[in-house]
């Protein structure tokens, strides 16, 4: 009854496919460049990591999760996040399997371990969940923070 608007045969998708193949050659399965804790593309939830001069910030794209059920731990420079969601509960009634046309959303439990830069202070962490994104802010060690150096005239 509902059909996607854009067909998969669109040339744009083929270009993307070529790009993905190139990326896979570099970092994907079978590549020595792949991180030992790395996950396959499209794994739920997606994670981004960035830094400022004072902090390292982790963004976890995990919509529809009860923050009370999230287990967040940090040990040395490893941050781990365990949580889950049951998408069948979103329907509002007990869904019959034959009622689904599409089931693209992740359902189940997950755990992700993220290796952070050595410069972080595991004692100073703050986590906030808003609009389905978990933002974990970790302060850097005092001695690792970028400092401005004044140049004296002389």
């Amino acid at each position: 009854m509902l059909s996607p608007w854009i067909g998969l045969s669109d040339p744009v998708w083929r270009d993307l496919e070529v790009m993905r193949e190139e990326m896979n050659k570099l970092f994907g399965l079978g590549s020595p460049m792949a991180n030992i804790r790395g996950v396959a593309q499209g794994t739920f939830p997606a994670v981004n990591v960035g830094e400022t001069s004072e902090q390292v910030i982790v963004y976890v794209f995990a919509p529809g999760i009860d923050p009370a059920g999230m287990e967040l731990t940090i040990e040395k420079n490893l941050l781990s996040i365990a949580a889950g969601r049951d998408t069948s509960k979103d329907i509002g009634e007990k869904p019959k399997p034959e009622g689904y046309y599409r089931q693209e959303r992740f359902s189940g439990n997950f755990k992700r371990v993220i290796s952070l830069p050595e410069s972080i202070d595991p004692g100073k962490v703050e986590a906030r969940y808003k609009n389905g994104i978990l933002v974990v802010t970790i302060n850097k060690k005092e001695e690792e923070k970028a400092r401005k150096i004044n140049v004296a005239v002389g």
Partner: protein
Amino acid sequence: MAETKDTQMAVSSEGRPVAASTKAPSSIIPPVDIYENDDGIILIADMPGVGKDSLEVQVDKNILTIKGTIEDIVPKELKPLYAEFTGKEYERAFTLGPDVDVSKIEANMNAGVLKLMLPKAEEVKPRRIEVKAG
């Protein structure tokens, strides 16, 4: 792959480098669950980062479009170290059948999950047809 001219940088009047291409970055296609029961169709989409105010759901003729913008959460001075998720705009569209009562569509946004209820028009709801013996 993009041609070289698309990736070359030009310098704006302020002296900051800007991308020469004016092409808008492609939008993110949110994953969806679509379920049908006797009352209608339920569409659920994962759109992390989108709040109630940055969401747009519209029906034009029989095309249902959902759009959303990820609200700013990243500090300006942030240097990316690692990214699995890129993009800022979500967009996905579907063609609706004539049986959906477009005037009664309801949308609900919670924790980055959009739930759309697309009720069927009264006259198309399934009725049980009695089979007479004989």
